[in-house]
């Protein structure tokens, strides 16, 4: 006999993500899922961001395969940080984030940034319940990355082109990259950023603040 099933294979994660999303909405917390290759500069960007975003109460969830290196870097800034170790899994899943949320005082937070495992492939396939996806692309990775990994970029609400201070030392074609990103998503938001010198950090702060206030006054 033939039995029709028609069930999504991401249903379990999607349900957990919806639970997270409901909780974030109830608590008025704006949440970012931060993506990018290993070494793109995700943690460095957070280190540049945290000191200048002091009027929003921020927490960070750090996803990593095994180590606590990133969480240790963020802890120095005296904000709540939770380390999630995936034990070798290449992406965070919504249920893992739900566990981390139990350790955060959501009533006393405005923004949570979830730094996903460094990976340009499957991280975007797993909804965590976030409001926005931000992907960091460093100039040292090369112009072709949006073409090679379209899935992650087309889902992103903001792309950060990082290590912009190294632009002249690479053959990264910033105009072509921007054109390619716009091919994937109409009106893609792009910020050029240098965590070391602080260029672009204010733009990122404005983006987060405006999205945070949109969430408070929909």
């Amino acid at each position, binding site marked *: *006999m*033939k*039995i*029709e*099933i*028609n*069930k*999504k*294979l*991401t*249903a*379990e994660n999607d349900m957990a993500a919806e639970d997270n999303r409901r909780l974030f909405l109830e608590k008025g917390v704006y949440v970012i899922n931060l993506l990018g290759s290993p070494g793109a500069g995700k943690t460095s960007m957070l280190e540049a961001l945290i000191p200048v975003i002091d009027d929003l109460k921020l927490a960070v969830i750090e996803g990593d395969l095994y180590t606590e290196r990133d969480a240790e870097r963020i802890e120095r800034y005296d904000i709540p940080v939770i380390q999630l170790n995936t034990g070798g*899994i*290449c*992406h965070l899943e919504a249920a893992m984030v739900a566990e981390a949320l139990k350790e955060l005082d959501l009533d006393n937070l405005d923004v949570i940034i979830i730094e996903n495992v460094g990976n340009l*492939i*499957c991280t*975007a*396939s*797993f909804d965590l319940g976030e409001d926005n996806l931000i992907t960091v692309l460093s100039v040292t990775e090369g112009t072709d990355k949006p*073409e090679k990994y*379209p*899935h992650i970029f*087309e889902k992103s609400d903001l792309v950060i082109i990082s290590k912009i201070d190294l632009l002249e030392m690479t053959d990264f074609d910033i105009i072509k990259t921007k054109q*390619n990103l*716009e*091919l*994937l*998503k*109409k009106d893609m938001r792009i910020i050029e950023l240098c965590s070391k010198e602080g260029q672009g950090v204010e733009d990122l702060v404005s983006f987060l603040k405006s999205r945070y206030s949109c969430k408070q006054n929909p």
Partner: protein
Amino acid sequence: MHEMSFMAEAFRHINSAAIQHQLQYVNKVVLVLGELTCVDKNALEFAYIVLSKDSIAEGAELVIKLIKARAYCEACGDLFVINHFSRICPACGEKDIKVISGYELYLAEIEGIEKR
């Protein structure tokens, strides 16, 4: 290797349907996979071999139906197949397109033999 966790979820549905319909065994499993999902067909097949062993679907045929990425242009109404990268309407060059297929990833149906 997220294919393994997707296939594990497929097996949860297969097992509960088999119990509900009192199947003795399952002889066919049909999955639908869109080409924009970043899920690899070969890795799914490998996960199936591993997870079907000693299960109700051991030895059952696996069919993976691949779905092309298609889009609809909001501006000119053209319906077209998109390549993996560009999201521009080939007819009018407009970017206002709506992807209508390519993100599918689901267990469509199973076939099995009922217990006597």
